[in-house]
């Protein structure tokens, strides 16, 4: 039976060093890339939260401006029909009325917008409106925007 003697000669240590150093570098790079991506994702999450609450704040402000108009119209109108007619004349820019529903869109950035709609109460009732729609829209992909398709 042939038996060969294996022994470590010159070059083996260098070879092992190269393999180990390369493996460690690859692992280190992967860990760093993964951590960097995690951080970017978290920063993006923070941005989204800020944008959504900023939009919600803008929606409340637009509701305030609408309610100021509604309150003034309610003072001047004697009945519901006259009230609605006055509202149509003085509705803030960007708002539209359909039956008893007034809707508008709030957009603070290109990426996100909120579709708002309130329902009008009867003339003289308080509060004059209540929310029926407060829907966040997110533009998913610039290509989808060209097609006019939106996701939420």
């Amino acid at each position, binding site marked *: 039976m042939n038996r060969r003697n294996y022994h470590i000669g010159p070059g083996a240590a260098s070879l092992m060093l190269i393999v180990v150093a390369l493996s460690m570098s690859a692992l280190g790079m992967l860990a760093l890339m993964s951590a960097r991506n995690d951080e970017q994702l978290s920063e993006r999450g923070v941005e989204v939260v800020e944008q959504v609450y900023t939009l919600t704040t803008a929606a409340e*402000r637009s509701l305030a401006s609408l309610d100021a108009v509604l309150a003034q119209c309610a003072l001047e109108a004697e009945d519901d029909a006259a009230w609605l007619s006055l509202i149509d004349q003085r509705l803030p820019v960007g708002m539209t009325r359909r039956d008893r529903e007034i809707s508008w869109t709030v957009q603070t950035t290109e990426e996100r917008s909120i579709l708002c709609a309130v329902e009008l109460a009867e003339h003289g009732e308080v509060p004059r409106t209540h929310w029926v729609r407060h829907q966040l829209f997110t533009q998913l992909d610039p290509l989808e925007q060209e097609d006019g398709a939106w996701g939420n």
Partner: protein
Amino acid sequence: MGKSSRLNTLLVEILIAVLFFALASTVVLESFVAARSQSRLAALYDEAAADVQNVADELYASGDYDSALESAGFAFENGGWRLPREQYTLLAATMEENAGAGKLVTAGISAAVEGKLIITVPVTLYIPWEVAP
């Protein structure tokens, strides 16, 4: 090449290899430490964002910002609300403004780490005068 000379060459090579390995591992270890620090920062951002959202939603739900902040554990100090957490501090400031037929109650809620703001969220609620407390 004699046996003794080969052994010497091998020893010198192993010595160089060990030294180089130590140098390389120092560099790679630094990248691992940087990765760990970045991961912790990412986790901190996530936690702070969720915390700020929770407080904001509590304010929306209650309508009475000051009592909601107090019940959430905030303390009023130097003209603002403050709630220290383990890794960051939650800050809040409230204000009211006239808005024609009602008032706009606004709060700014932030999370800060060592004086640096990492997230700030506005919370605004419109309350008509007729239903204002």
